[in-house]
């Protein structure tokens, strides 16, 4: 018996601007110090939601470019829609400085082995290239297994897989101190299955290049 949870997030982007600038579309607010928070869609156009709390009140923002002002001595004001050009005028430099999300690679392994599949071995050059292009970087190497076998055994196997990939990266000159090597055993399958189910897509190491 297993229960599983597939979570799908509409990623969100938020900005807290401790307001020196005064957005013209904002409703008038009293008080000296006003902070402004605006919710933005991510690069795929998805918008999440944020809850903004101030003295004695809170506002839920759910729409693209929905904004709210908060003064120190009052509940948050009414949410309002902020024109894109005002968003840019207010927080353009911060948005421009927001890094690209990390690059992620999934490398697959043979059954019950710390040996890469041929297809994944062929993918290694593009991993090296990405590391070089993005350098300096911070890298996570996380090993996984399918659900066949005991939990503890799989934890060891997934760690061997992660270490095998880390060794390949180190052999290509990647500084070991920027490699964070961990293992999740069979606890974090990419493809949810019941226990004791062979699934090649779960025999993997995920390499995240930040």
């Amino acid at each position, binding site marked *: 018996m297993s229960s599983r949870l597939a979570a799908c*997030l509409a990623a969100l982007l*938020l900005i807290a601007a*401790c307001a020196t600038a005064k957005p013209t579309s904002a409703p008038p607010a009293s008080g000296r*110090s006003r*902070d402004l928070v605006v919710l933005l869609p991510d690069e795929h156009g998805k918008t999440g939601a944020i809850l903004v709390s*101030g003295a004695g009140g809170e506002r839920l923002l759910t729409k693209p470019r929905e904004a709210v002002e908060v003064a120190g001595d009052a509940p948050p004001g009414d949410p309002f829609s902020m024109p894109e050009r005002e968003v840019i005028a207010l*927080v353009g430099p911060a948005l421009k400085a927001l890094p690209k999300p990390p690059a992620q690679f999934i490398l697959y392994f043979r059954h019950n082995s710390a040996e890469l599949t041929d297809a994944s071995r062929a993918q290694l050059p593009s991993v090296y290239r990405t590391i070089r292009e993005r350098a300096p970087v911070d890298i996570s190497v996380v090993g996984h297994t399918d659900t066949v076998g005991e939990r503890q055994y799989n934890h060891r196997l997934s760690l061997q897989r992660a270490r095998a990939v880390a060794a390949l990266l180190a052999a290509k000159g990647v500084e070991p101190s920027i490699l964070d090597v961990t293992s999740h055993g069979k606890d974090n399958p990419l493809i949810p299955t019941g226990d004791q189910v062979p699934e090649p897509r779960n025999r993997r190491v995920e390499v995240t290049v*930040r």
Partner: protein
Amino acid sequence: MRRASWIAVLLAGLSWAAPVPFAAAGETIGIVRNSTGKASITRDSQAFPAPAGTKLFAGDTLSTGPDGSMGAILRDNSTISLGPSSTLVIGDFLFAPAEGKLRLLVRISRGTMSYLSGLIGKFAPESARFETPVASIGIRGTRFAVKVDE
């Protein structure tokens, strides 16, 4: 308006390839991806420049000058950035999904920031919080699809 005090960068001549000058407790929580102009990190009351590649630790204060900006990626794959004349503290960051320990607390005291949520926002949105001097911001509205095997 709060008068922001810009922390002087005392080690401006230091090569970034040199080891971080101060021993940091705990684990790396992220890395600076880009910075322009004056951009610094304050750790254990000491400020040093923060070029691309600088490792981040919980408790670090990130600051930019009037011509500065900085962008970083945290270990949960979230991204965070500061505009000019900005200061924020990554007060708390814990990303140990295997142990179910996920936490993020950012306090911004001046300027502008932007943030794109990562895995903490996905797995434990209620564990992420942002504070300004007058407001607190939480992540909500994660969409879930749940399927329970019989």
